[in-house]
Every structure is written in structure tokens, then in C-alpha cells.
């Protein structure tokens, strides 16, 4: 079965939030019949309009929230609850403000009781990889937004998760910083052969990074379409202006526009 060969497998996942109010219980269906998978070493983007339940899906995959229906399989076995096999990079700043960059990156390794020498070696390696040499002793509030997200990335990569879940990690950054983060991520992905599921609402970002894109519908979110992206690796910003890239961008834009219209019509 395909399930066992995939890194992560999402089967018929549905999520309904119920809120208790004065008038009774209100139910909001956020996800419906979500089916998707990610191969080992693949970078897949989940692209959808805002409010379609992307973050909810990431929270479910990370184990922070329970599914109402359906199951999640990691390397063929079902998972529930959070664990270091699924690293998360959040959209907001989620670094521990009382630890400096070095301590933030070392956190996961310390929890694993990795020997000190080995922690030092790995943390140094990742600080070099994210290009923050000389910033080890800086605390999060002394770092720029881009630097913080670099540390957040290094902090999860350091524990070598089976899959890296990224929830619009660069959405809050300015254009230039976002571009350099894309280059860094593409580099790291190739060097470490890390499996990545990347959530975004930015079509260009998805096309630049992904080997495959899942398009999500408006709420209740479900997978509308799976689109393989054929651009060769290694990719650089140069492909952004190529005709094929632009035509992909146009057709995905139109798909998403239809979703926006649909959600406004509701």
C-alpha cells in the first residue's frame, strides 16, 4: 500500500469546531475530506485562500488539535498528539524569548538528552547553515524578523524531524527578506533532503518552492486539485519571469479567484 512508502499520509480528514453560545451549540466545519500525501524528500506546498483551514490542517498534522474524522499516518503508522517527528515553523514569532539564538536551537536536542559535545557541534553547524555566525548570543528581541525565522528554522531542523511543517513562515516578512529566505530554504532542502510541507497563500512562493502543489478550496477546506510543478532543480529567482512560470501562475490565480468568489457568495 502507498501509505507505508509515504512520509505523511492524510486520509479523509474532517474538522468541525463547535462553539457553545447562548443560543445553543454552533458548529463550524473547517475541513472536509482532506486527502493528501508527501513523499520522502519532497517539498509540497498547500495553497489556498485565507480562512480555508490551512492553519487548522497544520495544527492537526502537528498534533496540536484532534481530527473530527479521518486519520494521519506518519511513515505508515497512525499519529495523534505532538512529537519531535513533526517539526513546525510557525507564522508568528515562536522563539523562546528567555533563550538566546544558541539556546533556542539547542532546545530540542537537550530534550532528547543528546550529549553536550554533540549538541555543540550540531548547533554550530546549523548556525553556520542559516548564516547567523556571530549572533549565537543574541536574544530573539535583538534579532530582525528574518533572523528570527532563520533561528526558528534551525531549531526544528536540528532535531531532524521526519517532516517539516511550515505554516506561512515568511508571510510577515518584507519582500527582500522573503526572497532571501526562499533561497535559504531551497538550499537547506537540497542539502538535508528534508521532507517539507509548506503552507502559503502566495502563488509565486508556492510555484518557486514546490515539487507539487495542493490547491485548497474555500471553507470547508478540501483539496481541489493536485498540480505537479515541472520546473527543474536547482531553482533560483530567475524562473519567476519565465513564460511557463507565468502561465502556471495565471491558471492557479484563476482557480483561487473562483474560490474567493465562491466564498464571498456564501
Amino acid at each position, binding site marked *: 500500500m502507498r501509505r507505508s512508502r509515504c512520509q505523511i499520509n492524510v486520509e479523509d480528514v474532517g474538522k468541525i469546531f463547535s462553539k457553545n453560545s447562548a443560543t445553543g451549540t454552533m458548529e463550524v466545519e473547517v475541513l472536509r475530506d482532506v486527502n493528501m500525501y508527501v513523499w520522502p524528500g519532497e517539498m509540497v506546498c498547500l495553497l489556498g485562500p485565507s480562512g480555508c483551514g490551512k492553519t487548522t490542517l497544520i495544527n492537526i498534522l*502537528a498534533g*496540536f488539535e484532534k481530527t473530527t474524522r479521518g486519520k494521519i499516518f506518519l511513515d505508515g503508522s497512525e499519529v495523534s498528539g505532538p*512529537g*519531535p517527528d513533526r*517539526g513546525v515553523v510557525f507564522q508568528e514569532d515562536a522563539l*523562546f524569548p528567555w533563550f538566546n539564538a544558541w539556546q533556542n536551537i539547542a*532546545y530540542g536536542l537537550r*530534550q532528547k538528552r543528546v550529549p553536550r559535545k554533540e549538541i555543540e557541534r550540531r548547533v554550530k553547524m546549523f548556525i553556520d547553515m542559516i548564516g547567523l555566525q556571530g549572533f549565537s548570543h543574541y536574544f530573539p528581541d535583538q534579532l530582525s524578523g528574518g533572523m528570527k525565522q532563520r533561528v526558528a528554522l534551525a531549531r526544528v531542523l536540528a532535531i531532524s524531524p521526519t517532516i517539516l511543517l511550515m505554516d506561512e513562515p515568511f508571510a510577515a516578512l518584507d519582500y527582500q527578506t522573503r526572497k532571501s529566505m526562499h533561497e535559504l530554504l531551497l538550499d537547506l532542502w537540497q542539502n538535508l533532503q528534508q521532507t517539507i510541507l509548506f503552507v502559503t497563500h502566495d502563488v509565486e512562493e508556492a510555484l518557486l518552492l514546490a515539487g507539487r502543489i495542493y490547491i485548497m478550496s474555500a471553507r470547508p477546506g478540501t483539496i481541489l486539485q493536485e498540480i505537479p510543478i515541472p520546473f527543474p532543480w536547482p531553482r533560483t529567482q530567475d524562473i519567476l519571469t519565465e513564460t511557463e512560470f507565468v502561465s502556471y501562475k495565471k491558471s492557479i490565480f484563476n482557480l483561487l479567484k473562483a474560490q474567493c468568489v465562491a466564498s464571498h457568495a456564501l
Partner: protein
Amino acid sequence: MLSFILPVAILLLWFFVTATNRVPEYILPGPVTLAKGGFDFFFGSLDLSPYSGTFWQHALASSKRVTTGFLLATILGVPTGIAAGNYPRFERILDPLIQAIRSIPGIGWLPLAMVWFGIGMKTAVFLIALAAFFPIYLNSMHGAKQVRLIWKRSALMLGAGPCAILTTVVLPGAMPSIVSGLRTGMGLSWAYVVLGELTGVPDGLGAVIMDARMLGQVQIILIGMISIALVGRLSDRLLLLLLRSVAWRKEMV
């Protein structure tokens, strides 16, 4: 410069009304009498009074009571506060009772404390621990509630267990609030040590001012009050230094 205008004016007025005997010495002694008495209280040997050089002994007695009571309040207040802030169920069990006890003013406990513990060290320590407990508990609880969900989730996905989350996320996340609770608690401890010592204990700064009242030594009352302020301020500084040395970051304190 502006900040000196008012104190200097008051000092001059004080000197004027006492030097001209418009206000008699037994109501308000003049600045010179006060300074002399203060020097004698701290260093002795100026004139032979029962208070000569006794500051250190009294300050030490009060400090012992404050330290014991404050430590008790901290040991009880920080863990229960953190637990109540972190576990809503624990809060629902514990908080209503604590809030009910809190509505009794601390001073109202004095007679009962005297019945239970008699006069002396135990009563003072009980009153201090009781009074300092509430701000320490409340601020620790508030601090633990302020800990962002995303920090806990980060720790979880990085492999932290429940214990590690308490010590590496909740405690440091609540730290700034805990510190302000401890400082308020320390301030209250000095207020309540005076209350505890007003009831006829032989030593302590509170005992000194009560004793001086009975002997009509107004300058000693004032000197005692100033001494309590000084020692209280010093203890706040020491507490800050201590907390800074154990905090994850000194900016947190």
C-alpha cells in the same frame, strides 16, 4: 534640581517651627535632635540611652522574621500560583477559597494569630507569610496565564515533556510577573513585621517604635520609621540582585 525644592522647603519649615518652639519637642523633635538620635541609634556612644547602638540587633531580629515569613510565602505562593495559572481545573479547585480568605484584611488576623502562636516570632512570621502569600500567588498565576500557547506548542513539537514545559517554558514565561509579585510581597512583609512586633516582643524595629511611644521618645519613633524604610528598601535591592542572578535573562527582572 526641581525635585529638591519641596524637600528642602519642608526641612526649612520643620527646622523653623521646632527651633522657635512653635511645635514642642514631645510632638515633633527638630532635625538636629533627630540626626543626633539617629547617629546614636546606629553607632551608639553619643549619649547613654536604652537605644544606643541597638539598630543592628533590632534590624537583624526583624530581618529574620521577614526572611522566614517571606520564604514561606514564596514556597507556598509560587508553585500554587503557577499550578493555578497553568491548569484551569486546579484554579477552579483552589482559587475560590484563596479569594475568600483574601477578603479578610491581614490586620484582622492579628488577634487569632496571638491566640494560636502567642507573642513573638511565630505570630510575626505567620502574619508576614499570610500577607505576602496573596500578591505572590496572584502574580504567579497571572504570569502563568500569560505564557503564550505558541511557546508551549513549540516546546511540545521539540519533544519536551510536561515537566520540561513547566521548568523551561511556564516558569521563565511567567518570570517577569513572578518578580513583581515577590517584590510586592517583600514590601508587605516589612509592613506586617511592624504589626507583628507591635504586640510586645522584646526586639525588632516595630518593637522599638512601640517602646519609644511608651517612653515618649518621639525622635526614636521617627528614627525607627526611617530605619524600617531603609531596611525595606535594601531588602528590595537584595531581592532584585538575587533574582537577577537566577533569572534566564537579567532583562526579565
